[in-house]
């Protein structure tokens, strides 16, 4: 089996379509499921083989690649493409963020954009919600943790208030 090296531009549309880990794992699961369709018909593009299985956004990405001529023509190389995309997604830098509230998708996208810009590369946010941080955020990246929440300040304030009461 010939190992194909893909241009990084192939992965960009997939990486750009996800902002946080849940969406990323859903996309990976979708791509894993897509592999089953690559042996039904030896000829043709992925969108033609997978048909209605593809979600609209994934179908849009593959259509874009097909238009640009970046999708390989045969099953074997298409499988390699899917594996390469999955590997790329799994290896994307991840920033763990803890909020005190349930953020909207728009807000997640905005925060992701700002952090990606700061790091100079696309990142995936691993978001968790913990009401005990009260407000603000806690960031964890590359083994470092920094608490920018109000949780400790509120704890100290309440503790002082209880002691003085």
């Amino acid at each position, binding site marked *: 089996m010939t190992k194909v090296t893909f241009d990084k531009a192939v992965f960009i549309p997939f990486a750009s379509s996800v902002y946080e880990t849940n969406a990323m794992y859903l996309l990976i699961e979708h791509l894993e499921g897509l592999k089953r369709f690559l042996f039904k018909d030896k000829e043709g593009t992925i969108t033609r083989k997978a048909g209605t299985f593809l979600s609209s956004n994934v179908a849009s990405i593959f259509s874009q690649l097909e238009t640009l001529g970046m999708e390989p023509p045969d099953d074997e190389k298409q499988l390699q493409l899917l594996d390469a995309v999955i590997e790329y997604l799994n290896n994307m830098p991840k*920033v763990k963020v803890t*909020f*005190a*509230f349930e*953020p*909207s998708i728009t*807000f997640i996208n905005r*925060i992701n954009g*700002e*952090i990606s810009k*700061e*790091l100079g590369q696309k990142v995936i946010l691993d978001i968790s919600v913990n*009401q*005990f941080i*009260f*407000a*603000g*955020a806690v*960031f964890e*990246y590359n083994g*470092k943790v*920094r608490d*920018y*929440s*109000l*949780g400790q300040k*509120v*704890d100290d304030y*309440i*503790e002082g208030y*209880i002691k003085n009461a």
Partner: protein
Amino acid sequence: MNIPLPSIQVLFFATLLVNVAFLIILAALFLLISKISHDSKHHAHDDHLQNKHVAKKIEEEAAEKLDKMISLTSENLEREIREQLSKLVDRAEAESREMTQFVASQEEAIVKESQAMVANIVAKAEKEADVYRQNQIDKVAGQINSIVSSAAKDVLGRAISISEHEDLVSQALERAKKDKFFA
């Protein structure tokens, strides 16, 4: 060989004389032995009587001395026994007194030791009870503080709107950038 007749007669006569002489000597010896035997029997009887008398006397003296000796020994023995018994009684009394004192001192020591042990146990139990009570108080106080803190945070948290939350996160992100956290 032919011996002449007169010689045979002489020889016969001489032999006869010798035999007669021998008989006479034997008779004399017999008489002498009989006499000696008779004398001897007579002397033996006398010796026997004398010995019997002497033995009786010796026996009587020995019995008398033995009685005296036994009497003296008995007295000595009785006196010695009385002395030893007296010593034994004295010693037993002394040991009994010592034993009584020892038992009394041991009883006193045991009582003191028991009292000290009980006092220690009571003190230890009181200390443990104090520690346990304080721990429980601290635990309850901690739980109360935690409940109050959670309730206060919950109330305060609900008072913050989504847009305020988003603003606070944006501020946090700006601080992280300033701190070069993502660098």
